[in-house]
């Protein structure tokens, strides 16, 4: 009996220690996540400019090994940088923490995706955005926007598009650059062009204007080059889409996961 009780006690101590160690690892993972991931994925993985991680299956990281690889290497050309080198213990702690986020409930999205699709169609969004190959190409493609952006970010992008221009999702103009940045150019001979920056280098800039016409300038031929940081060519839809419709629209956009 005594021996059995002793074994039980040892086992419970072991379980307790294991639990304490897992707790420490989880906390370590949380600290690392806060420093390196929360700016895009939200403080508790609720998402933002980057996708929310409160989901049981992450599309690019279906298992722990894949998740560790994504943390270690980033996702080139999808905005997710390789931040720094990790020890195996650090990687393990981050995997543990991010997996724990998958067990928390995602923020519920008010609104109906079906109704939101109708809002999208009648609001003229498709004149500038492509979904599944259909629509105009001045603005960002939205085919899989729900997989890349969290609902709050999508809402903000509709009501205040200038507040957060996307960065680093497209390979051009390149990591860290504002995409779809409005620019205003006045040429040496007085012509004015306003549009979005497509690409730029130290000597040239390429622009698409609101009618989607491409312009290419050498900077030496430009009198004024104004980068309108904090602005967007997309009108704000705050007043144009009433509250319930907005919920539906956000629900629709959040449902867009692209090809599986």
């Amino acid at each position, binding site marked *: 009996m005594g021996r059995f009780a002793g074994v039980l006690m040892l086992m419970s101590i072991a379980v307790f220690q294991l639990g304490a160690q897992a707790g420490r690892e989880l906390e370590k993972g949380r600290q690392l996540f806060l420093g390196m991931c929360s700016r895009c994925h939200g403080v508790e993985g609720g998402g933002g400019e980057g996708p929310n991680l409160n989901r049981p299956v992450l599309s690019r990281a279906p298992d722990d090994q894949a998740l560790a690889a994504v943390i270690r290497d980033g996702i080139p050309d999808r905005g997710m940088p390789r931040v720094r080198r990790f020890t195996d213990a650090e990687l393990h702690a981050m995997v543990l923490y991010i997996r724990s986020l998958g067990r928390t409930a995602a923020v519920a999205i008010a609104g109906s995706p079906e109704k939101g699709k109708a809002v999208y169609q009648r609001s003229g969004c498709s004149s500038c955005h492509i979904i599944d190959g259909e629509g105009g190409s001045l603005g960002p493609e939205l085919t899989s926007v729900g997989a890349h952006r969290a609902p709050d970010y999508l809402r903000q992008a509709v009501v205040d598009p200038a507040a957060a221009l996307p960065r680093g999702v497209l390979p051009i103009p390149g990591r*860290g650059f504002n995409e779809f940045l409005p620019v205003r150019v006045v040429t040496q001979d007085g012509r004015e062009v306003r549009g979005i920056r497509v690409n730029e*280098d*130290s000597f040239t800039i390429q622009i698409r204007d609101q009618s989607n016409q491409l312009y290419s300038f050498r900077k030496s031929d430009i009198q004024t080059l104004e980068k309108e940081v904090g602005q967007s060519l997309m009108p704000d839809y705050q007043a144009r889409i009433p509250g319930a419709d907005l919920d539906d629209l956000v629900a629709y956009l959040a449902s867009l996961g692209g090809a599986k």
Partner: protein
Amino acid sequence: MRIERFEVLSFFMAVSGAFAQVPYQRIAGADSNPSTWVTYSGNYQAQRFSQLDQINRQNVRQLKPSWVYQMRNSGIVETSPIVADGVMYITEPPSTATALDLRTGRPLWTYTPTIPRDVIIIGSPPVNRGVAILDNTVFFGTVNCHLIALDAKSGIVRWDTVVDDNKKGYYITAAPLAIDGKIIIGVSGAETGIRGFVDAYDAKTGKRIWRTWTVPGPGEPGSESWGGQSWQHGGGSTWVTGSYDPDLHLVYWGTGNPAPDWNDDTRPGDNLYTCSLLALDPDTGKIKWHFQFTPHDVHDWDSTEVPILFDADVQGRRRKVVSMANRNGFYYVLDRQTGEFITATAYVKQTWTDGLDAKGRPFARRDADPKVEGTLVYPAISGGANWWSPSYSPRTGLFYQATREMAGIYFKGDAEYKDGTAYAGGGGETKNGDDAYGAIRALEATTGKLRWEFKLLTPPLTGLLSTAGGLVFGGAEEGNFYALDAETGKPLWELQLGGAVRSPPVSFTLGGKQQIAVTAGTSLFVFGLP
């Protein structure tokens, strides 16, 4: 005229085979033979200045490609070509040496050693910055840490020496420096916790003549600047080619960060001789003097930038000086006979120190130290400048440097030493894109005062070449290659080459006509006047 005579002479030398192709004296006299480019930075003073003036401010707009060579491997190209006697010698990533016919760009030979599949390269991409030449032999280092000597005519191996154990993380990216009878080489690998060194090898046999550790062992001067056993894996790599003063008979070589880079828990003290410039006796390797730019570094402020030697009137006195645009954001001028600090000036925005004291020691801000949650610091992890070559023009007295204006977030992480694995203790993220920019800056070489700048869209990784034609050649990450007016910084010519320029330009002549060579992406371009 003198140039053409020299080319005729070297033609006969090559045919007769009676003379060494590039004897030491020819490298020491590089400035009087500007038709060739016989050492990494053009001359031993590492000025990367060409005495050629055929291409100048008036005609640079007419530059046209003479030929283009496309490398066979993908990867980042940082090679600085060597040009002698009708042949250009380059390296291709990661560890291939190739000779090209200077007239056409057609390969004459190429040599790729067997690199183990499990080669350990931690801390940088698998790059190589070029070969050295001495007499009839070409020398280069490899990612598995060999130093290899090839017959310059055929590419056949003369000798192949293991510099150190790649299993411990040692590897080579630097171009060797050839001096009289010796090949000097440095190593990479501080991010795996190597103990750094500079080595000298007998050019004929490949036998090691001396090794100077950049981290002193117990009982040696400087060992008191390390806590516990931390010196054993203290870093201090030596991964960029240094310079040489034949008159003072001193080799100048920069040293890299202490290990672990961003976690200093185990290494209290100044961590000598990391983040320093060493003046070495080339006969013995003895450290004649040292200057530590960043004592107890926690930001990866390698001091492996190219040290440029020049003589100038400084504060009313003629002095032999060495200068460096350090990764930490300051431009330093030191007396190169004694190592005495003369002056330093921040050449980019920096927030890690409240300036420097009268001897050049920084008042490092502890609140700028890396943290688990990240610390925002200027400059970013790649520094204000880094391995890409600066240029000094004796004509203008200006020091030209490709500079980076960018903040970084520095993270402290775990560090646990295990042979051949990362021992970096954290890392960094850069605030790039529209938040950052670059600039080619011309500094008064004796003071560091900004004379002019030419802004670039993004922080560059380009080397620079200045010329007697009054030009500065440089590149950009977006593929632009351009010439600036050396006096004013005004852009005079530009061409889009389609890939990032990450190597330093060189100049030489072809059929008596000045050429400029540079790489972009994985192609090498040679330009000349029509």
